[in-house]
C-alpha cells in the first residue's frame, strides 16, 4: 500500500470511528437540518489537514466543528451565542406527579438559568462524554482552565437546583 493509500485508509477509519459522535456533537448545538452540513465541512477540513490530525482526533474534530458552526451561523451569532440545546421534548413535557419527572423539570429550569458558557462546559462532559483534557482541546484552553470553569459551572448548577433561600421563602416551615 502506498503512502496515499495509507492516508485514505486511515481517514476512512477515522470517519467510521468518529461520525456518530461528531454528528451527535453538532446536533446538540444546531438545528437538526443543518447538522449533516456542518459535519461534512468538518471532514472536508480534516482531510485537507489530515497531516495535522492528532492521535486522539475526536476533540480536534469537535473543535473544528465549533469553529465551523460559528462560521456558518455568524449572522445570528451576533444576536445569540452558540448554545447547547435541550431535548426536543422539553417544551412539551407534562408533569405527571412522579418524582422523576419533577426532578427532570427542576434540572431543566436550572439548566436554563445558567449562562451559555456554563452550559457548554457542562455539556462537553455530561453530553459529549469528554474528559477534561479533551474538552480543553475543544475549547482551545488549558486543562486547568477548563477544570476551573467546569467546577464553577457545577456550583452554579447546584445553586440553581437548591431550594429558595430565606430571602425568598416559599414554605411556611421556612418562615417559622
Amino acid at each position, binding site marked *: 500500500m502506498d503512502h496515499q493509500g495509507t492516508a485514505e485508509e486511515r481517514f476512512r477509519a477515522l470517519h467510521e470511528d468518529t461520525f456518530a459522535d461528531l*454528528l451527535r456533537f453538532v446536533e446538540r448545538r444546531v438545528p437538526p437540518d443543518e447538522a449533516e452540513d456542518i459535519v461534512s465541512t468538518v471532514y*472536508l477540513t480534516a482531510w485537507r489537514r489530515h497531516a495535522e490530525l492528532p492521535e486522539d482526533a475526536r476533540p480536534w474534530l469537535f473543535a473544528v466543528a465549533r469553529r465551523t458552526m460559528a462560521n456558518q451561523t455568524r449572522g445570528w451569532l451576533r444576536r445569540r451565542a452558540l448554545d447547547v440545546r435541550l431535548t426536543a421534548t422539553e417544551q412539551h413535557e407534562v408533569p405527571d406527579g412522579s418524582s422523576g419527572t419533577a426532578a427532570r423539570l427542576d434540572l431543566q429550569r436550572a439548566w436554563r438559568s445558567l449562562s451559555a458558557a456554563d452550559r457548554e462546559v457542562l455539556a462537553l462532559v455530561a453530553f459529549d462524554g469528554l474528559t477534561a483534557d479533551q474538552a480543553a482541546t475543544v475549547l482551545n484552553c488549558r486543562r486547568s482552565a477548563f477544570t476551573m470553569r467546569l467546577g464553577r459551572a457545577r456550583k452554579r448548577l447546584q445553586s440553581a437546583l437548591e431550594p429558595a433561600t430565606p430571602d425568598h421563602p416559599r414554605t411556611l416551615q421556612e418562615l417559622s
Partner: protein
Amino acid sequence: MNDLEELAVLDPARHTEPTPAQWTRSRNFVERTMAGRAASFPVRRRWVAAGAVTVAAGLVGAVVIPSLVPGVTEKAVASWTAMPTARTGDQVLPQAEACGASDVSGSSTTVSASDVILAEQRGDATMLIMRKTNGHIVECLGVGDDRLASMGLTDGTPLPPPPAGKLTLETRSSYGDDDNMFSNIVGLAGPGVTSVELRLNDGGTVHASVKAGWWGAWWPGPEGGEGTDEFTVIAHSATGDTTYLPSQLP
C-alpha cells in the same frame, strides 16, 4: 449518580444513532473529498434550497469542485476587488479551456471564445460562465490556470428569462473557512438590467457582472452561504431599481 450523570437526561442527542442514509451520505462525501471532488455540503445544499424553484426549470444540481491547489484561494481573496473588470471570451480563452476541460457537467471537446457567456476579472481571479459542448452551462472561478472551483448551472435547457428589469437567483453559496471563505452568487438578468450590486449588511458593496442575460459575483466572506439575508441585491435598469433580499429572489 453525580450531577453530571443526572444532566445526561437532558441530552438532545441521547441514544440517537446516525441513520443508514446518513452513514451512506457521509461515507460518499468522504470518498468524494479524498478524490478532490467535493466541497462543503452547506454550499451545495443551500444552493439547491435557494434554487428550488429553478430546479423544475432545468437547473443542474450545483456542485462545486475545488481543485484544492494550495494558495489559490488565498491569492483570489487577497487580490479581490469590489468592482470587476469585464473580460471577453478571447481574453479568457485559456481559463475557458481549463473550465471546459473539467468534467463538471461533461468535458468540452473544443472550446472557443464564443462559448464564454460572461467573464470578469477581480484581482488575480477570473470568473466565467460558459456553455460546454453538450450545451450545459457552467461557472468556473480560478487564478491563472489554476482552477479553483467549477459548478454546473443548467443542463442546457433554456431557462425562462426574468421580466424586464428583474433578476432571478440560480445559486448562492460560500466556500472555504476562516479568512479564506468566499461567497458566490449567480442568476439570470431580465432585459434592460444595466447593472447589479450587492450591499452587504456590514456596509460593503459588491458590483456584480451582467452580460447576456446572466449576472454573477463573488466576494470574500460567508454571506452567500448563510440562510439568513445578510445582504441585499439591487438591479438597476433605465426604468428604475429593484431591490431584493436574497430570500425574495425568485
